[in-house]
């Protein structure tokens, strides 16, 4: 039987993805349950993205115990990890890290072509559905490099969700009071309502106060759980409020 915690970090040290000896966040204690909606904030360069990638099993932790879907990462084989990753979606920051040699539709179809035996027509249908959902139906055959960064991120979201997922990590979606920010908030709220566990890395808490259930902060190499929206609204710690845009 799988644990109620879908992801558990016990005393996990988060390292820099390329320079493994550089510690970014130390001794992280974090438990994510099924159906949670977390927003992790922090100043730029604090290690939010690396923490999210570590929790998703993409970065090896520098120390501590990381359990993903009930399995200890340190005991997992490469094959196990590939298996779990199919259940966890990850939308990368900035351009979504799309593959530039593939078109938008090919980027989205790749995981389905690789992992499933669906016919090309069935895959195309799913790609078209997702393109319609993210509002980019006109750009199926466009190279990702021709899209602006906001649209690239939308394609990144669609690509991450092409296979059925249990957990979705979203790193730095558009923030502020823009139409795009509202679009992301609505999309993620709707995914959470469908039962998906959502973890967002953002330095704009205000956008998520009505949507997210839990908030946490990464600052000065430490991870701190703040609590629910009420705690964020009531928070008076100037040290983090200066980085987080709270109403």
């Amino acid at each position, binding site marked *: 039987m799988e644990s109620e915690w879908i992801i558990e970090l016990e005393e996990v040290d988060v390292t820099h*993805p*390329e320079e493994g000896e550089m510690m970014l966040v130390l001794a992280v204690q974090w438990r994510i349950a099924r159906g949670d909606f977390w927003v992790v904030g922090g100043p730029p360069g604090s290690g939010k993205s690396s923490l999210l*990638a570590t929790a*998703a099993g*993409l970065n090896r932790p520098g120390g501590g115990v990381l359990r993903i879907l009930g399995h200890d990462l340190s005991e997992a084989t*490469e094959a196990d990890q*590939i*298996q*779990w*990753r*199919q259940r*966890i*979606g*990850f939308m*990368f920051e900035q351009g979504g*890290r*799309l*593959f*530039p040699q593939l078109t938008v539709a090919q980027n989205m179809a*790749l*995981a389905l*072509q*690789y*992992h499933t035996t669906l016919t090309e027509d069935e895959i195309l249908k799913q790609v078209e559905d997702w393109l319609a959902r993210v509002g980019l139906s006109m750009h199926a055959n466009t190279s990702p490099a021709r899209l602006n960064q906001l649209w690239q991120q939308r394609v990144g979201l669609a*690509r*991450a969700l092409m*296979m059925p997922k249990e957990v979705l990590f979203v790193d730095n979606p558009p923030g502020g009071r823009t139409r795009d920010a509202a679009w992301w908030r609505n999309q993620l709220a709707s995914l959470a309502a469908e039962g998906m566990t959502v973890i967002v890395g953002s330095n704009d808490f205000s956008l998520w106060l009505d949507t997210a259930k839990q908030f946490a902060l990464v600052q000065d190499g430490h991870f701190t759980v703040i609590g629910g929206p009420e705690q964020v609204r009531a928070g008076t710690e100037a040290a983090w409020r200066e980085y987080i845009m709270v109403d």
Partner: protein
Amino acid sequence: MRGVMMVAAKKTIWNLYRETTGNRIIRAVDLLRELGAFAIITIGVTITKFNVASRVVHPLIYEQVWRAGVRLFAMVAFIAMALGLVIVGQTVSLLTRMGAQEYIGTVMVTVVMRELGPLLTALLVLARAGTANVVELGTARAMGEVEALESLGIDTVHYLVMPRVIGLAVSVFCLATYLMVITFGCGWLFAFVQDVPLTLGDYFGQLGKAMRWQDFLLFAVKTGLFGCIIAVVSCYHGLARPLKVEDVSGVTTRAVVESVIGCVLFDAVFILAYLFV
């Protein structure tokens, strides 16, 4: 005092020598170990996953054959013609003038089929496709595309390395075969122009007699292995760490040097094989 200073200087030189030489040896052994591990992983993935996700991975193999093989055909044909006219033709002409016509086949097979053909083709493929691999994969790594593949549950060795290894192995084999055939043909053409009294039938008859079945087998294994060495070394250097613009030239040069050393070392092993088979 002077004696003490000389002893100190000697010690410093010795320490410097030991540190630099020792470090180089340690680095070389480390590199060899890492390349070996990478090659073993690649072989494992190729054996166990060759037919996994074939609709995604097999087109990538064809693409590599196209890029490293078909697109290099004109260059290989040009080099082969030059080789045939300049070296083989002259050798044929010389051997005929010396009355050693009966050795033409043996000399040609030894020089072109066993040694020059595979090695020259490997160097051409290395210059064209090997260096491109380092830059492409290094850039993909730096842009986070490798991590993006992992996030989709796609095995990066299966998706990025295996197609290149198979593609380059097939390409080197095919191109070396073309190079050999064109070189032999142009060699006869040069001899014909030089009025060497040797008919086309006699010429190819001699070549045929000099070739044994082992030559074909070792030719295939050798050229395939050269392609694998180039692909493994270049993919390793491309994926080992994300490349910055200023790193590209250094890493590419290292990959080229190591690939050449690898091919030459394995070539030496094949010389032993030819002696004993």
